[in-house]
């Protein structure tokens, strides 16, 4: 498997749900295997100001969970999607409606930021069985033992599965999503190397990465950098996604 060079994050519904398919097609055209799509939530406790504002704009424009998933149905030229969300909207939809909504979409996995393994075991197991595994998150505060356990609880489906279903998400720094305030990369480099000694699955590295140097440093480790808040902020200015992504692919 070749290295996925960038994992972009888009907030569904910002600037509009109608624009989302086009943005995804552009990402695919640039050769990206996967994109994170954020489900706008009222109380995004793991997100910094940029994604909070984007979520609240999207909610204001009617981007409900149901309508977001409906807008993704039947897309043929999309990368694999990782649905980035908080747990409550999924619980309120309920398992069966959620599965029916997911089925026609390119969503391949779920990244539920406030659902540690074990809090909703039945729900998580059903989703996994239906082809929607949960992405494991590994934070700076995650000890080595805990990392091993987490990776075991949300196992690698193996090389036959796409990146979106295999990768673990390495949280680069303490805090919330958002462009880095001069993030020191040394600690995350060390952590990625340690994790690569534990697991063979692909790693994505996010939170606070936006400058080309940081992205290159992640790639140099053989990991995939995530670009979220910086991309959302760029798109808000009206800059085309192609230009936004290309600048971060070098």
């Amino acid at each position, binding site marked *: 498997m070749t290295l996925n060079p960038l994992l972009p994050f888009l907030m569904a519904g910002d600037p509009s749900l109608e624009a989302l398919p086009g943005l995804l097609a552009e990402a695919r055209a640039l050769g990206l295997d996967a994109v994170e799509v954020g489900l706008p939530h009222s*109380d995004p*406790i793991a997100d910094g100001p940029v994604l909070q504002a984007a979520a609240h704009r999207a909610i204001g424009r009617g981007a409900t969970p149901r309508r977001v998933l409906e807008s993704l149905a039947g897309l043929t030229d999309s990368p694999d999607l990782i649905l980035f969300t908080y747990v*409550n909207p999924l*619980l*309120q939809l309920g398992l069966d409606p959620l599965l029916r909504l997911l089925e026609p979409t390119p969503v391949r996995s779920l990244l539920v930021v*406030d659902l540690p393994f074990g*809090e909703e075991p039945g729900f998580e197991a059903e989703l996994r069985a239906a082809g929607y595994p949960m992405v494991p998150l590994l*934070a700076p505060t995650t000890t080595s033992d805990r990392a091993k356990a987490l990776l075991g609880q949300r196992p690698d489906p193996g090389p036959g599965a796409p990146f979106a279903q295999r990768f673990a998400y390495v949280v680069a720094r303490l805090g919330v999503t958002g462009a880095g305030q001069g993030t020191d990369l040394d600690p995350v480099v060390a952590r990625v190397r340690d994790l690569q000694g534990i697991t063979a699955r692909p790693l994505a590295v996010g939170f606070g990465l936006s400058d080309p140097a940081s992205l290159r440093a992640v790639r140099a480790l053989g990991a995939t950098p995530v670009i979220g808040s910086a991309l959302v902020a760029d798109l808000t200015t009206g800059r085309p996604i192609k230009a936004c992504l290309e600048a971060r692919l070098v």
Partner: protein
Amino acid sequence: YAPETLMQPLLDLEAAFRAALDDPGFQAELKAELRHFVGRPTPLTPAPRLAAKLGLKALYLKREDLAHTGAHKINNALAQALLARRMGRTEIIAETGAGQHGVATAAACARLGLRCTVYMGVTDMARQAPNVARMRLFGATVRPVEAGQGTLKEAVNEALRAWAGHCTEAHYILGSALGPHPFPTLVRSFQTVIGEEARAQVFEQAGALPEAVVACAGGGSNGLGLLIPFAGDGLRRMAVEAGGHGRALGEHAARLDGGRMGVLHGCRTLLLQDEHGHTAETASVSAGLDYPALGPELAALVLDGKVEVRRASDDEALAAARLLCETEGILPALESSHALALLPALAAEGAATVLLGLSGRGDKDLSTYQSRLEL
């Protein structure tokens, strides 16, 4: 239901909490501070003139309004600050709604020499301005939270975010019996001193337990603190929510008949939300009761039929406050006034003896009382 970044800090906190509970040194330190600094035990005041007015045989008020800083919040804030110091933390993060928890935390931090940052919604900062001034006098930094309605929910969001950024050096002192485990347990555990004292006091004064025990319930720290110790007593335990100014979603903060199970701020509980799982807006004249979720433990007791939940409207609470002022010379917080507002109904249902938790004093609510009661 917490982000992974907070999972290890939460596990560490739980371990430290368990260890502290088992440490006689910690228990002695906490007890001494509660006695000499907070002013515990707080009194249990018989309220004969109000009781007579309402047709009750006897009414007893548990006076958390007389605790240092003016509300029950200090019990938990001080205990958690001691725990944080024991864990080697030097910084404290807190959220606040009405400002009482923020003031209590700022005071506890000043007392113990810890740096303190309090997140507070801009709406609450405006309606509880005296508490902002008090926090700043205690040396705390008050950070305004502009998002959403600018009330407690947004303040918790922002405090959780801040904690995720500083969880290795900072402790987050959550003020209500909510949030991710072990916070609800911590807060409840540090607040049951209210009910333990009240139970012994009412026995001493009345020679018997009352027929009903009543508390207001925002997150649930005061409600659980008062009601839990009466668990085995076979009496009515009642919590009163903010009925606001209407029955439609967004016009109140009554989670029992307006909410359904959901996840907010790291815990699964009764939550006011729309069909999409987005947290609903709330309304209450009381800044301390407008949280959209009931604490999980209180919700469980309610759903189990062990605690009754009622609602009191803004107007009922305001009228109840005035009546207590005029009959007993005690100025209750708007939160506590919601509990008082249940008394006429309780009397009509035949209750003769009631113990009620006065969670705080109403000084912080003076401007609301003045404008709403046309003083």
